[in-house]
């Protein structure tokens, strides 16, 4: 099964990391994989474009099936391999509802982090405004407060008592935030959640290799 799977990925990319965590949790170790470099532009190489015309990672193949969206790959893996590995979708209406809601709330979370981190990369010089930079920082602060609220009174996981797709999808984003200087003092619930899960086998095993060498940029330290 895993032998029919191939993952093209880049280090430090939350979307790629999600798929790697899901594969581990579903006991699909042994899949073929290739680490590509964003810095060298390898995500725009012919090899990737043939699987993903958007030139984005992750690009995932299972036999003839192609999945280039991390959420799609995670949902597909859970549905197709429901009975093996960790059950990633909880029983119970309320928990299912919360899980789905949180994974979609992760979209604005990731987006707002990107708006701050990549402002100069995304916005050409003539269009930049201090007011926009300020606004993006404020928006990210508000977003992080929402997540502090979500994690208030939570056990070890985002939803209920078990590890779920919510953790698969969202843990990498929190790790990314902290990696880029996000404050553990200002966001203690996020920090506590991060510390509880970072040693989970599926997460430890797939920790971005480029993060092991040392701390990242502190770009988000003032958030």
């Amino acid at each position, binding site marked *: 099964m895993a032998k029919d799977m191939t993952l093209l990925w880049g280090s430090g990319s939350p979307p790629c990391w999600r798929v790697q965590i899901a594969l581990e949790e579903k006991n699909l170790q042994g899949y073929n994989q290739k680490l590509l470099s964003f810095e060298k532009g390898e995500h725009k190489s012919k090899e990737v474009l043939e699987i993903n015309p958007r030139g984005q990672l992750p690009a995932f193949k299972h036999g003839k099936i192609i999945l280039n*969206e991390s959420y799609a790959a995670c949902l597909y893996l859970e549905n197709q391999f429901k009975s093996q590995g960790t059950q990633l979708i909880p029983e119970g*209406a309320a928990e*299912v*509802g919360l899980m*789905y809601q949180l994974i*979609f709330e992760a979209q604005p979370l990731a987006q707002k982090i990107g708006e701050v981190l990549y402002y100069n990369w995304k916005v050409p010089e*003539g*269009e930049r405004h201090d*007011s926009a930079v300020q*606004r993006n920082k404020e928006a990210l602060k508000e977003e992080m407060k929402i997540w502090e609220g979500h994690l208030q009174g939570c056990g070890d996981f985002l939803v209920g008592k078990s590890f779920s797709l919510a953790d698969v999808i969202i843990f990498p984003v929190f790790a990314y935030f902290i990696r880029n200087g996000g404050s553990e003092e200002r966001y203690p619930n996020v920090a506590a959640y991060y510390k509880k899960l970072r040693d989970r086998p599926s997460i430890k095993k797939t920790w971005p290799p480029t993060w092991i060498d040392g701390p990242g940029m502190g770009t988000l330290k003032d958030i």
Partner: protein
Amino acid sequence: MAAKSMTLLWGSGSCPCWRAMIALEEKNLQGYNHKLLSFDKMEHKSQQVLDINPRGQLPTFKHGDTLVNESYAICLYLESHFKSQGNQLIPDGPEEQALMYQRMFEGLTFYEKLGSVIYYDWYVPEGERHDSALKRNKDGLVVELGLWEGYLSKQGSGSFLAGKSFSLADVVVFPTVAFLFRFGLSAGRYPKLEEYYALLKDRPSIKASWPPHWLEGPEEELLLKDI
């Protein structure tokens, strides 16, 4: 009856709200309680909404004690909870299922690119707007439209986004397509999208949930007519 224990707060002319309403219809959950709120009057930021959704966004949805915000979450929740009633929205076969999920999530990018053009003035304060930025956003939307024309060409006429059956991919993406034409997209330039739009616009679930203010008259500014 399940629908009677459901409440949807929504606004007219909102793709996310429309998605949830299509899903409710497809799962035979007509008769749900609902309240139409006005974006213009900022009712989405009212206490009533903030109490259920601290983000002050619509749709918000309650099923008994279960609260679900986020349109895609509502759709996935409904399909999971009511799998055996109404139309099956997630295919079982691996290939079709994978394609469905893939298109569903590409639908988020599609909606984002649409919004970057039609909601440009809503998102960007006056002092920060640039013609160059709007042009870039329009170019990005054109590239995105090219991808979807391609996807629909590959599927063949009369087909839905993920194959022979209507699925969650259509539930979440059709509203985006309807918005494109509402805002003046040229059917001549995007024939496959036009065909898809024509295929679905009279589907009962879609017709029943059509944005009410669209029935009153055309859009004032056809922001997409030149792309």
